[in-house]
């Protein structure tokens, strides 16, 4: 009886060892993401402060799906398609200078690509980039970056704090968030010639303003010297992608724009006049629908 009980233990020992090693690797590579819960998000905000004379003023405010609108009004709706769960927000003030303050907001989004998506919604391609988090940028009154599934927004309240203050606060938060500052791997898709740097966007709902383009990327590009827009719709399956391009075809026809359709083993290609985006070339291949808009003349 004892022997029978002991056998299974011996059998599972290798698995336990493997699990332990895996666990250690996980801790090494994902110190925060594995274990950061909603409750611990507050600890990502530096307390009591992040630099000499700059201290947290008051308590940390916490917002969820239900009450985010109390903080940012209707803008809250923008965050929901990106899997928003929690925002923690703190005000930092400088000792002896009540007019200068900084608000630090950390938004926990659904995933890394969602964090990039909401970041890209606000990104100003012309702003100065800073090496904080993933693709941080700064202007006179704000600093924004994303890291893993977190979107971080620092903004002036009252007179603008100095650039050094923004950077110090951002670095303190980025360090606490842990992990690596890597863009979501899906962005590899847009590493193609002609893309205008820092114009890549991920949209979680109604790409290009069309509800049937559920989610995907867009980016500005240059083709033969002319500005165009590239887009890629990320569908869940080939069937979904076929449905998407079919709905687009129906829409074009409803608007009186009969597309030219080419079908091949690679998928379906449309050439058409889009009511909003002028000349378009759109292709469905596998579970993707992708294309170019704003074409005026063929290359």
């Amino acid at each position, binding site marked *: 009886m004892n022997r029978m009980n002991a056998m299974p233990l011996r059998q599972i020992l290798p698995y336990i060892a493997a699990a332990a090693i895996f666990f250690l690797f996980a801790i090494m*590579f994902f110190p925060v993401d594995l274990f950061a819960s909603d409750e611990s998000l507050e600890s990502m905000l530096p307390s009591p402060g992040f630099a000499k004379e700059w201290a947290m003023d008051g308590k940390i405010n916490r917002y969820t799906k239900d009450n985010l609108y109390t903080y940012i*009004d209707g803008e809250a709706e923008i965050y929901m398609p990106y899997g928003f769960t929690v925002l923690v927000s703190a005000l930092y003030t400088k000792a002896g200078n009540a007019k200068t303050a900084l608000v630090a907001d950390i938004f926990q989004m659904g995933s890394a690509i969602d964090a990039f998506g909401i970041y890209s919604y606000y990104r100003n391609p012309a702003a100065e980039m800073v090496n904080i988090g993933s693709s941080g940028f700064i202007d006179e009154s704000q600093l924004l970056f994303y890291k893993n599934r977190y979107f971080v927004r620092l903004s002036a309240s009252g007179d603008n704090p100095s650039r050094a203050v923004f950077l110090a606060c951002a670095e303190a938060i980025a360090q606490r968030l842990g992990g690596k500052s890597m863009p979501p791997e899906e962005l590899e898709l847009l590493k193609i010639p002609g893309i205008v740097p820092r114009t890549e966007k991920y949209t979680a709902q109604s790409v290009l303003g069309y509800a049937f383009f559920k989610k995907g990327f867009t980016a500005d590009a240059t083709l033969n010297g002319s500005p165009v827009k590239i887009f890629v719709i990320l569908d869940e399956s080939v069937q979904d992608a076929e449905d998407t391009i079919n709905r687009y075809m129906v829409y074009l026809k409803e608007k009186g724009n009969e597309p030219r359709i080419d079908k091949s083993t690679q998928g379906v290609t449309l050439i058409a006049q889009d009511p909003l985006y002028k000349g378009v070339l759109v292709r469905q291949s596998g579970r993707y629908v992708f294309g*170019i808009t704003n074409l005026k003349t063929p290359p």
Partner: protein
Amino acid sequence: MVCCIIYKRRSLDNEVNAMGKANQEKTINRREFLKLGAMTVATAAVGLGGLRGILEAKTDKQNQGVTPVYRTLGRTGLKVTVVSFGAMLTPEHEVMRAAFDLGINYVDTARIYMGGKNEEIVGRAVKGIRDRLYIATKTTSKSNSKKAIIKDVETSLEKLGTDYIDVIQLHSLTNRDRAFIPEVREALIELRKQGKVRFFGVTTHTNQAEVIDAVVDDKDKFFDTVLVGYNFKSSPDVREAIGRAAKAGIGVIAMKTQAGGYKTDAFGAVAPHQAALKWVLQDANVSCAIPGMKDIQMLSEDMAVMGMKLTRADERILERYSNAISPYYCHLCGRCESTCPEHVAISTINRSLMYAEGYRNRGLAQETYREVPNTSSALACLDCHECVARCVNGINIAHKMEKARRLLT
């Protein structure tokens, strides 16, 4: 083993990326990406030969349909479309342009929307047609000095690519005080003399009736418009204040017309969007509504409301929707908590219930409920024979607390 770990790390990577997401996406294969990227370029390079005709063709049949309906925006005298455009949620200027091509002639943005980008998007949308549109924007809510107001307006003009703003609004007033700051008024008057702004307005989300009344009672009649949250769930004091504003010649612009429409998802197929918009517009005291429109589908739905009457069927839809959300629809205003002698955290408990009943997320509900200290939990209600806490919106608090004890403790 190493292979196993590497494999698991990759899996973990994907799990971490997707952590917390309700609908997890399939992992996207990197090779598939690169191949796709190459295909896009190849398509661009070779796929367009001989298609000049299609690409250069004009679209003849677009922009058909609804005839715009106009109302006068109070004493500004502007004739605005009853369904106007709230730009805050719209990332694509082409969608706005489509709305303008369909006849919508009033667009509302703000200095702070999208971190300052929204005005630029509006600017692109109005390019070339500025003279047939009215643009409303807002100073930032922290701008309470002459210098700050002037700076906001100058920045907005630059971002919008225009040399005048039709309606400049003080953003998000929560009481009457900000409507009467002398140097703010001085700045606005100066800007009007320079031809940079035409009319003045305020916006409010909190203490709306007080803010509206402040504008109405102002003996100087300084502000011409109020932008106010107004929908079928609004309290009578807001509706009455809107009536007084209209009577005083103030243009009333309605926002938040959907009463938190995103909550609809939790209640199935009840889709009250058009009915909710009609409900707002059937109030003749409202000059226009500015629903946010993210895409062409929303634009079509909202446009179609122009000229429609609120029907009995619409009222029924709104009743059903209202009934559906009422047990859950806590405005989280917290005003009830001051009426509870046991200081029960009613708002947080109601939020927990909303997670449980509305979102069907019991884990999140319990997690939220655990945030409440025991002394403020629904168990504290057991010390009272009768509940004296009152909700201004009519929620039965005793019933909700009893339900919380049953479901969450």
